[in-house]
């Protein structure tokens, strides 16, 4: 093959790294990469050297040693004889609990507040504006402390629930709201309770099937089925029948006052309530704004068209506006969920034993492993955030506009 180019081959000179546009960007990138690596190396080395100067090393073996402290709220059994790793796990589960429940409650309140803020009722819209602005413009920590202070200072002590005391239980003597938390009945799952639960789940599935059938039928024949009464019947009857037929396998363990405190039942601690409510209320204000902007992003013509077809306003919202608004709403909603999860580390302020308080608090303190503990904590929050955002992205790709 003949050589088509008869130009002399250009020789490479060092100065071309800087003056030749073909190489310059490469040079800049290499230099930047080297600087970053230098910086990181300096950081790591500085840490290691300074730790060594303090007589400390980096080691994660503390995770396997006995924790020695107790944790009040535990979703899995934990005693002071368990390891620091298990204490961290207890804390992590507590973080996840408050984060999941917080995201759910925040979304519910947020959607309501966002929709109501657009209400044509002047008063409702104004009240919601005030709510959103108050929540958004004050620090979260303040709300956590306010809710906690109200829960501990304004509620009676367990002692006051004694015979002749100043406080009494509510809801037919089943729930006690005290300054140590809310005590409520706990279901005890006896023999045969599995069947009852299974029947309950089956009836829920039945309700969905019923709705599907009813819609099909309406589309085909135009006849409507009485969906609501039928669903209610499905919801209540089979379960009740099974419950009594199997001899009441599920019973309730009521909290009763004994000794220093209520015994039995389920204790929802004030620290949890304060953190959960405050996180939800605070985040709901941001979600409300996201929902509002999502709704406003749907062209007014859509509403007008729906009205022209004779649709009721609430059905218009449900069937026309919200599904389209969701596309705008989901992406910023993800970041609110991430915020809520990370903000839950303020748990420390009210003594809620989350991952920050166990792993990043007591464990770090008792073992002196600040660097290791905080590093692990950071990794935990990072992984949690990545999981949340990928789950939400997955959902988002389901609802987003499908271009065909």
């Amino acid at each position, binding site marked *: 093959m003949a050589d088509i180019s008869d130009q002399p081959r250009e020789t490479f000179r060092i100065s071309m790294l800087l003056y030749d546009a073909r190489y310059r960007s490469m040079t800049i990138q290499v230099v930047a990469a*080297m600087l970053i*690596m230098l910086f990181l190396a300096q950081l790591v080395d500085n840490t290691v050297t300074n730790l060594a100067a303090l007589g400390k090393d980096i080691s994660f073996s503390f995770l396997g040693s006995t924790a020695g402290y107790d944790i*009040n709220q535990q979703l899995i059994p934990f005693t002071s004889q368990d390891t620091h790793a298990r204490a961290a796990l207890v804390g992590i589960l507590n973080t996840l609990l408050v984060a999941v429940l917080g995201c759910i409650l925040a979304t519910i309140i947020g959607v309501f507040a966002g929709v109501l803020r657009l209400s044509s009722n002047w008063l409702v819209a104004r009240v919601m504006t005030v709510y959103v602005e108050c929540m958004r413009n004050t620090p979260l920590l303040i709300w956590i402390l306010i809710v906690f202070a109200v829960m*501990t200072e304004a509620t009676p*002590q367990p002692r006051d629930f004694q015979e002749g005391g100043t406080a009494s239980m509510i809801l037919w003597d089943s729930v006690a709201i005290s*300054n140590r938390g809310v005590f409520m009945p706990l279901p005890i799952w006896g023999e045969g309770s599995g069947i009852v639960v299974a029947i309950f789940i089956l009836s829920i599935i039945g309700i969905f099937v019923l709705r599907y059938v009813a819609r099909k039928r309406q589309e085909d024949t135009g006849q409507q089925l009485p969906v609501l009464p039928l669903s209610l019947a499905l919801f209540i009857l089979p379960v009740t029948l099974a419950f009594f037929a199997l001899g009441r396998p599920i019973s309730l363990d009521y909290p009763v006052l004994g000794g220093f405190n209520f015994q039995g039942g389920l204790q929802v601690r*004030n620290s949890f309530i304060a953190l959960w409510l405050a996180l939800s209320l605070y985040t709901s204000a941001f979600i409300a704004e996201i929902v509002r902007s999502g709704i406003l992003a749907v062209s007014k013509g859509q509403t007008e068209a729906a009205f022209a077809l004779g649709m009721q306003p609430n059905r218009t919202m449900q069937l026309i506006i919200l599904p389209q608004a969701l596309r705008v709403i989901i992406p910023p909603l993800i970041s609110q969920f991430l915020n809520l999860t990370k903000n839950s580390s303020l748990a420390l302020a009210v003594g809620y034993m989350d991952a920050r308080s166990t792993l990043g*608090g*007591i464990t770090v303190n008792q073992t002196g492993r600040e660097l290791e503990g905080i590093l692990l904590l950071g990794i935990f929050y990072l992984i949690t955030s990545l999981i949340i955002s990928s789950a939400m992205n997955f959902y988002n790709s389901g609802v987003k506009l499908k271009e065909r």
Partner: protein
Amino acid sequence: MTKTVFIGALAVAGLTAGIASAQTLNDVQERGTLRCGSNEGLAGFAAPDANGNWEGFDVALCRAIAAAVLGDGQAVEFVPLTSQTRFTALAAGEVDVLVRNSTWTFTRDTDLALDFPAINYYDGQGFMVPRALGVSSATELDGATVCIQTGTTTELNLADYFRANGLNYEPVPVATNAEGQQQYLAGACDVYTTDISGLAATRATFEAPGDHVILPEVVSKEPLGPAVRHGDNDWGDIVRWTTHALIAAEEYGVTQANVAELAAAPTDNPEVNRLLGTEGELGAMIGLSADWAVQAISVGGNYGEIFEANIGESTAVGLARGLNAQWTEGGLMYGGPFR
């Protein structure tokens, strides 16, 4: 090429980082003030008064150290630290010395890389309950809700004690003494537990101290004392011997009132002379002036005077000397020999 730069960077960083520790004394003298890690406020031990002046039993030790080193008991900057942050702050060099009801333990001394050069209060952990509960012994506390400060020996002792005695309890973690006090008074916990001295100090600030009892059980040993970073032994020596100077001063009858007079000319007690620098060169041996101990004692008096003025039986805190009496009186306070 990148690799060589990398290794070069490592070497340079290694050189710059190595020169830490072993110069706290220089730092303090250059700065002109002593940074002392203290409580966020525990009556009698360390709390700012109405004018913002810190005072208390632990504060007095800080001031004595400042006087010994700088010749001025007021040249102290108090840094309030929570039980969770105190050791990190000390290790990071934010404070020069930590005098904050801190217990000397094996782990803190070794693994946390601290040193506890001296003990200024022998304490133990106890329980405080409202008198109305009618509890007279800690063994009756089964099922109780207990407020504890996190990051303390208290929370570990508590877990041990209740487990060893087969009792159940619900821990309520609090970050500071003030928070614990508020929770306890609101009845959110039945029991408040910490060092007995801390309980007495906390109770002294209640509206009705008489409504609360400290149970007789002492469930742990809590030798409290100043802490410094491990590795700077010169600085550790200064803290140790200043504390011992105050203790020895009480034993030899050197007080705030007579220290100037005793230091004016050698007395016929050679131990006092060496302590006060009128004989020998003890000051120079720890890098301080000859009258370092005179300065330290002048600020708040000797150990006994500091005790009586801040937490003694005549004060609201009302602690008896007990274990903290001089060894000559059956206590554990034993100032080292000054020679």
